[in-house]
């Protein structure tokens, strides 16, 4: 028995443009529901992308916090807090949540943005023509209160910990999709190694912001629609049994286990493909299976040509030609590109599929639902700098 066997991933919480639970996302994908939102400001701000997959900014009542919490948080921190709340609703009904044994592992994006509001930039323009001293004075007046805290990308962790009383081991990673799976792997290991009794694991997308566009452009963005959202789940120590399939239903709903993982790095095209291929093989080996033991593959959002190509080539190497490989489908049609939250949203979606014995298959036109032939799912992350990660999830009772 490996030490991962005793850890269960459960309590999925998912907040995307498709809704506030995994079932809504599943249904939206199968129904081909248009979950995008045409936004007037966004249409102007994102050339060629009038639609994005936005979510409402959670208010204080939705988050269950005092409104002053909103002053020390940005939208992405609030999305994360809401995702955590969705995940912890179930566990808080069945038992106490929080305390020294509850840790927190987060994948957090960074949005390279202006500290001053756009409306204050007219003053900046005039001040810039005047003197540096005028600019400094403008900053003194116009920098939003608490921005010194709210712009720290760890703010999400602080608010989640404070709201739910988490005081266990923690880590926060940034900024690309591999950060979400790093949080997953390290969160599970923290429970497996006894550092935490439970770990809240989550990731959040960047808030969609006009200045995200040039940042994505610079990274080789293909034009895929951006999305907002958060994905969370909880890693908990399960019954100490030798086989995952013998585990009784988890109190917080369906559960899966992280059966294997692999990480790697490839700086450019061929290296990236090799790194991803090796990461998948490592994850399969750790899971004690091979390519035939995978029932469904959820690749990372294909938002760069290099990443898309590397994933395609790696899947070819691992699974052979397209006709012989397991179903491949992700959530992008209904969520847009979610950055660090994308692979973790896929983990939540996989948990839903493993619990119900179903998978999603994408034929390029539509997404259809099929029986899951093997109770194992592969989820990939392909970070923008070449960091890759692959995880194998396995059913562990439902």
């Amino acid at each position: 028995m490996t030490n991962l066997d005793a850890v269960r991933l459960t309590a999925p919480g998912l907040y995307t443009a498709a809704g506030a639970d995994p079932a809504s996302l599943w249904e939206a994908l199968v129904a081909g529901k248009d979950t995008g939102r045409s936004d007037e400001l966004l249409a102007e701000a994102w050339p060629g992308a009038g639609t994005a997959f936005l979510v409402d900014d959670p208010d204080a009542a939705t988050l269950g916090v005092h409104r002053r919490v909103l002053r020390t948080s940005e939208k992405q921190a609030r999305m994360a807090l809401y995702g955590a709340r969705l995940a912890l609703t179930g566990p808080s009904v069945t038992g106490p949540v929080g305390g020294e044994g509850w840790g927190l592992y987060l994948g957090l994006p960074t949005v390279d943005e202006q500290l001053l509001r756009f409306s204050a930039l007219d003053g900046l323009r005039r001040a810039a023509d005047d003197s540096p001293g005028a600019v400094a004075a403008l900053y003194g007046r116009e920098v939003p209160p608490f921005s010194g805290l709210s712009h720290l990308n760890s703010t999400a962790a602080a608010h989640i910990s404070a709201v739910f009383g988490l005081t266990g081991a923690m880590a926060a990673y940034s900024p690309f999709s591999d950060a979400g799976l790093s949080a997953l792997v390290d969160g599970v290991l923290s429970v497996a190694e006894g550092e935490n009794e439970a770990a809240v694991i989550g990731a959040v997308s960047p808030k969609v912001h006009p200045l995200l566009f040039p940042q994505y452009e610079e990274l080789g963005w293909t034009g895929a629609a951006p999305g907002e959202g958060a994905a969370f789940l909880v890693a908990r120590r399960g019954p100490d049994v030798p086989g995952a399939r013998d585990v009784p239903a988890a109190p917080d709903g369906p559960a899966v286990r992280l059966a294997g993982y692999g990480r790697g790095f490839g700086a450019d095209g061929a290296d990236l493909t090799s790194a991803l291929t090796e990461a998948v093989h490592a994850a399969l080996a750790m899971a004690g299976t091979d390519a035939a033991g995978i029932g469904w593959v959820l690749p990372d959002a294909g938002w760069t040509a290099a990443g898309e190509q590397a994933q395609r080539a790696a899947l070819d190497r691992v699974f052979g030609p397209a006709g012989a490989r397991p179903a491949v489908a992700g959530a992008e049609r209904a969520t847009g590109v979610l950055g660090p939250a994308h692979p973790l949203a896929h983990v939540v979606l996989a948990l839903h599929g493993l619990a119900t014995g179903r998978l999603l298959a994408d034929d390029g036109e539509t997404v259809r639902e099929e029986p899951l032939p093997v109770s194992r799912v592969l989820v990939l992350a392909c970070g923008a700098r070449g960091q890759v990660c692959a995880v194998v999830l396995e059913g562990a009772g439902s």
Partner: protein
Amino acid sequence: MNPHIPAGAGHEVVVTGIGLVAGRLTDPEALFDHLAQGNTLIAEHPLHKEWGVPCAVSAHIDPAVRRSLEEAVPPEARPLGPAGALAWHAAAQAWERSGLPRRLDSERGGVFLACNRMVMEPAELAGLADHVDFEAGALDLDAYLDAGGPDPRRHERVQPDTATARLADYFGAAGVLETHADACAAGGMAIGSAYRYIRSGTLDVALAGGAESLTTLASVAAFYGIGALAPAGDRDAAELSRPFDKDRSGFVIGDGAAFLVLESRAHAEARGARVLARVAGYAGVTEAVKMTSSSRDGSDYATCIRAALADGGLTPDDIDHVNAHGTSTEANDTCEAAALHTVFGERVGRIPVTGNKSAMGHSLANSGAAEAVLSVLSLQRQAVLPTLNFHEPDEVTRGLDIVTEQRHTPVTTVLSNSFGFGGQNCSLILAQAG
């Protein structure tokens, strides 16, 4: 790829290389000597002073030093932004000093970097301002991009993980790449995470540290806005950061980078490396108080310290030096002093405590890494650095042995604390090589 972490494995983790840049100093020993003599890195920021910035004081990198470091980055590692260039110097120095080959070329090596995000500065925003509809408060992005938009390499330069990836690629140590974003505790947490990976047997070698370059107008204005920075008042720049002193009034922001090479002892000894110290314990925990302060009774910080001791199988009696987080804010130092009283009891008055931020300012994500490097040197030299500007304790800080002049004393095991905004806390324990 990573092999599975075997349950129960516990490889000893040692330090075999250190590197650092701070102020105008570009190696750890020079910094240690500078601080040992009671000198500071904190000075007026000439541009901020000229512009009338309320807190025009910082522990910034000397501009000439910064230029030379940026020019020294090898072409294959470019582009690196302000923090990345500092990280490169510190990491490359630590790697070279460790005696490891130029490239590890092993999946059993990793890079763990701590760095917080940057925000756009005025010169960049001025270009944006020409394309904003001020009534609508919206940006005409098409026009902005048509006019040239931002520096096309800007995003890559300022994203914290660019340096992580470049370092991993350059040194052939890409088994695990982590870019930590745990506020002011991130440096310690990056080292702690690397320690865990080596201890578990997943990695043999890790390059772990932090880098920060936030002595900018935007960052200073933001931290000033929440009252976290020490107001200049009538004091000289060198007197502003005063950890544990009753007249402390805020922190002084700083820049810098620091890295350690960590290895399993078996790996280090097999190649005949010089072992500088060992990592003897670590805890990185979150807390549940609030965004701007921790428990005033120090209980959250005490929990973190005790967790690190437990991790290393140590007791409070094993610690003979504390390298404090010591930001010089009223709240942090109160909480940390209370925690030290709680953990060490009556013995606290006999444990020398140093607050390096009194001379180096607070370089946020880098601070824990820089303080870890200085702790290694304290172990090496059997000397404890002074805390500048500590003249009189308050009710809570009373009873601590705050070191005010370099002290030569037996140092076997150092507790190095880092406590971040919002309650991301870590304690790292470094011990003599053995």
